């Protein structure tokens, strides 16, 4: 942090606030992943880190490097776009896989399958 001595005070306070909010929400989400009881409760908790945690830290980084004028801020926008697009896809795939596994094992605490989306019987 040798070049940060000429950073104005408002930028330092704003970057610090965004950084602490993002890291704190990521910590809360990961602690919820550790503490919640069921898998379908636990799959909600890390999205706190992937929505506001990632957003806070990326906006803090963009603001810091834009004020310091060392380089363009294209990388952070790419990461934000990628995380925003891919997190719902991965978590919905994982939840469908967990639901399929629970149903094939006959667990009683998952909702029954609707008649319109009964899977085809032939499996390769």
């Amino acid at each position, binding site marked *: *942090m040798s*070049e*940060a*001595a000429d*950073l*104005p*005070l408002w*930028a*330092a*306070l704003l*970057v*610090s606030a965004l*950084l*602490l909010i*993002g*890291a*704190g929400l*990521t*910590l809360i*989400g*990961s*602690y919820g*992943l*550790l503490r919640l009881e069921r*898998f379908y409760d*636990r*799959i909600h908790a*890390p999205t706190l*880190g*992937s929505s506001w*945690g*990632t957003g806070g*830290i*990326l906006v*803090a*980084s963009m603001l*810091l*490097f834009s004020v*310091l004028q*060392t*380089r363009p801020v294209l*990388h*952070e926008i*790419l*990461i934000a776009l*990628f*995380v925003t697009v*891919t997190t719902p*896809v*991965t*978590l919905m*795939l*994982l939840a*469908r*896989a*967990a639901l*399929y*596994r629970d149903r094939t094992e006959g667990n009683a605490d998952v909702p029954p399958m609707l008649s319109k989306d009964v899977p085809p019987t032939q*499996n*390769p």
Partner: protein
Amino acid sequence: MSAAILNWSITIAQIMLGMAMLCTIFRLAGGPRAQDRVLGLDTLYLNAMLLLLTFGMRSGSTLYFEAALVISLLGFVATVALAKFLMRGEVIE
């Protein structure tokens, strides 16, 4: 003054992200079923990416951002492949 504020907040954020990674490692090691472990691995990828971003803010170099982008891309591919494996028993059919 502003450099001291920024330095301390980056340090506290790195400690918080390290504790978050520790929580996901506990879930990854002792998850009751396989989908819990996959969810822990996905969250571990995300927290490692955020920790690399804070390292990049501390050092001011652009190398960490490319590493964070590659980590987020690999985490997406790994989690999709593992979820497909849990669903069907194969990755590519």
